């Protein structure tokens, strides 16, 4: 064996065919990583981009595996070696082992760069290094290893066929396929999802990284790698019969059965394979949007307050492949015959019982759960499980903001904002006593006080739960829950927020107050705002502020809070947008030319571009709304002053009824009656 290994190693090292491409590939890899290191915005982004090189590793090692193992066939030495007992087995094993050394070195280089990046960014979060090791193993080392296996499997095939097959497999495994077929469906099946079976390379590499979830490494991804690996291993055992025939057959069967089991489990993947950012119809990017398109009756625009309150919640969560929960609620009054809750439609309710364990009748219609009770009931227990779309919850990460209905909320609340095609953000909750217990291997963070590991208690309006690459820190008396590898600034000055808010109030006439005092600031994963999350940049609740901003800042908090108080109405939407844009702009460009009233006719003719069927009129409307209406606003600000215009427009937008059209209002502002 040692002899075989020495020979294989010598062949590899001395032959330029193997060593030269390897050295070039590693140097090119280093150059690419140096460039990425200088430009990527966070260490997780750097890791993601680095791991895309895994496909090159796969290609090289498939090539090297093929060339090294087929050499014997090419020099007609197969007959010679097959005459020696066990020689072929030893040779294959030593060749595999030989190639594992450069593969390990290359993987170490990729990991080494992560350490360099980690140190240079001044990070001190050790769990991330373990995350890196696992990610490099899954998305760099193992693809390379399966590349070697593929090369060995093809060793008896002629070179052109083998090369063609290797290139075909590389294309299948790369992101080209899913990118090419994104959005294409055949018989209701997303073609891109078929490529999941070959997705051994890092996902979402063209997306900004989720710094709380990190690199997706769910159980299913490991099983997929195992599926292909065992499939090739069974082929090799059967082909080379390294041991007695019966034992070989037995081992082949074992490998095939295990591989099949892994494949079946992968085929049944659902909630534990969630963070894929592509256009599949039920994915996190457009899944919710598509669901709302086909289930319009499930979407309620208005909130219906409950005629009962939940005085106490006892919530038991288990996060493995998905969320499983037992929610016990103490309701008051106890003599109602109908209790109704909001619970996101991704969670399926399996049972509802009262305090005696008697089943209660219930119907789950979309996001709403209706429970019928005969007699009185003090407590209602709901058992449910499922997946919350972009609000992920599994063994790798948890991101459940309190404004999202991942536990039953009394009354009917709007979950989807139809007008904005985005998730709704509810900030009005009735205060209740909470006891929350979470079963997961991760450390969980919450706005509630932790009483023991992953157990939380307290009285608040709603509960948020997070886990993953997270840390909790207290800076200047403010508690932050944040990802230490995100490089987001976590020093939001309480005084600065107050000053910004006061200035905003002075500029517009806003009267609400805003304070950070006593609130936990949670920096949410960027995935939340990536997908239909326009409303979720900053959400202010009773004892927590949930920020989902690339650069959390006092201005961002003020803007989001200000926007949340500004009514949304179809007849003022145009003015509202221009007002907000100009309010937070760098300073309006001074303009001396007022757009002619006649040039704004489309804006007067239609409430929005949505109503226009004629393409020319539609384009005209878009031009008037995107260019001329802004020029009108800038003209008014130039001549009347920003403060005057902002205050007048703010008052107009806050009015319940608008007797004057928004265009006329802005045009005639300041008494100019040109219109």
């Amino acid at each position, binding site marked *: 064996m040692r002899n075989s290994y020495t020979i294989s190693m010598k062949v590899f090292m001395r032959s330029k065919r193997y060593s030269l491409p390897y050295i070039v590939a590693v140097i090119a890899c280093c150059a690419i990583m140096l*460039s990425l290191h*200088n*430009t*990527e*915005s966070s260490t997780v*982004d750097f890791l993601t*981009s680095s791991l895309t090189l895994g496909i090159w590793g796969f290609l090289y090692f498939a090539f090297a595996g093929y060339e090294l193992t087929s050499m014997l066939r090419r020099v007609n030495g197969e007959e010679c070696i097959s005459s020696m007992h066990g020689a072929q087995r030893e040779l294959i094993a030593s060749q595999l082992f030989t190639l594992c050394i450069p593969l390990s070195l290359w993987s170490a280089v990729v990991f080494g760069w992560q350490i360099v990046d980690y140190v240079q960014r001044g990070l001190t979060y050790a769990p991330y290094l373990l995350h890196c090791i696992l990610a490099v193993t899954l998305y760099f080392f193992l693809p390379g290893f399966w590349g070697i296996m593929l090369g060995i499997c093809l060793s008896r095939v002629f070179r052109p066929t083998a090369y063609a097959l290797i290139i075909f497999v590389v294309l299948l495994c790369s992101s080209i396929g899913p990118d090419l077929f994104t*959005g*294409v*469906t055949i018989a209701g099946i997303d073609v891109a999802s078929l490529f999941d079976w070959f997705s051994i390379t890092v996902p979402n590499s*063209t*997306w*900004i990284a989720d710094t709380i979830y990190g690199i997706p490494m769910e159980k299913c991804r490991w099983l997929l790698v195992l599926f292909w690996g065992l499939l090739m291993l069974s082929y090799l055992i059967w082909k080379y019969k390294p041991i007695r025939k019966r034992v070989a057959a037995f081992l082949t069967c074992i490998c095939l059965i295990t591989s099949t089991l892994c494949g079946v489990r992968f085929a049944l993947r659902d909630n534990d394979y969630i963070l894929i950012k592509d*256009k599949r119809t039920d994915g996190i*990017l*457009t899944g919710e*949007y598509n669901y709302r*398109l086909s289930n319009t009756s499930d979407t309620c625009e208005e909130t219906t307050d409950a005629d009962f309150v939940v005085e106490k919640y006892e919530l038991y969560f288990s996060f493995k492949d998905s969320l499983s929960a037992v929610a016990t609620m103490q309701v008051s009054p106890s003599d109602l015959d109908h209790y109704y809750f909001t619970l996101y439609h991704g969670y399926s309710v399996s049972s509802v019982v009262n305090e005696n364990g008697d089943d209660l009748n219930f119907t789950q219609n979309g996001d709403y759960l209706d429970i019928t009770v005969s007699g009185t009931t003090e407590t209602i227990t709901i058992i449910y499980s499922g997946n919350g779309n972009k609000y992920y919850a599994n063994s790798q990460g948890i991101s459940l903001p309190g404004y999202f209905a991942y536990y039953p909320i009394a009354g009917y609340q709007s979950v989807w904002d139809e007008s*904005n*095609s*985005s998730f709704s953000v509810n900030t009005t909750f009735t205060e209740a006593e909470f006891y929350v217990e979470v079963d997961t291997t991760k450390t969980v963070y919450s706005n509630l006080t932790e009483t023991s590991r992953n157990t939380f208690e307290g009285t608040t309006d709603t509960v948020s739960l997070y886990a993953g690459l997270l840390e909790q820190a207290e800076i200047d008396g403010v508690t932050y829950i944040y990802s230490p590898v995100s490089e987001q600034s976590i020093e939001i000055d309480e005084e600065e927020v107050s*000053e910004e808010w006061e*200035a*905003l109030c*002075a*500029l517009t006439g806003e009267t609400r107050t805003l304070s950070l005092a006593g609130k936990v600031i949670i920096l949410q994963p*960027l995935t939340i*705002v*990536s*997908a*239909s999350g*326009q409303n979720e*940049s900053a959400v202010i609740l009773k004892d927590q502020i949930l920020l989902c901003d*690339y*650069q959390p800042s006092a*201005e961002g908090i*003020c*803007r989001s809070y200000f926007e949340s108080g500004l009514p949304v109405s179809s007849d003022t939407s145009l003015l509202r*947008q221009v007002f907000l*844009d100009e*309010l*937070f*702009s*760098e*300073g309006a460009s001074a303009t001396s030319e007022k757009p002619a009233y006649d040039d704004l006719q489309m804006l007067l003719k239609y409430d*929005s*571009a*949505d*109503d*226009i*069927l004629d*393409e020319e009129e*539609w*384009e005209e409307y*878009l031009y008037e709304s*995107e*260019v001329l209406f*802004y020029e009108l606003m800038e003209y008014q600000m130039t001549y009347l002053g*920003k*403060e005057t215009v902002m205050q007048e427009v703010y008052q107009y937008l806050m009015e319940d009824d608008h007797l004057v059209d928004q265009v006329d209002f802005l045009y005639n502002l300041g008494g100019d009656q040109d219109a």
Partner: protein
Amino acid sequence: MSGTYKKVISFLLSLALCLSFTVSAFAAYTANTYRGSVQLTASASSVTSSSYGGNWGRGKVSNNSGSAGSVSLDLQLSTGSSWKTYTTVSAAAGKSTSTSSWGKSSVDYLVRVKVYADSVPLIGNPGCIAYGYVYTNSTD
């Protein structure tokens, strides 16, 4: 100069200072300057806009009511090495929607939007007509 007159002047100066502070307080947080647009025609499945510089970027998509289906807009930012998608929004036929602003004040980005039909037939045209708009916080 009388004392009352001086007080009025001081008051007006203070007011002017306060107002100028309030105006500058919210400078540069969001991407509000219209930079350009791109049109998705009925025969195309996707189109990408030119790129524009800025610290923040925002996108908006308007889908014509005669479109065959919904369209999406990806907001993409680059610091030089590659384009990264930051957020995506979808708009049904006859709807418009905007992304939130993305960026960092300390980083210079190139910003662009990609507009594409959500459903693409294997053969034939997607049949979507839409405009995508790019906004940044700068006119550079």
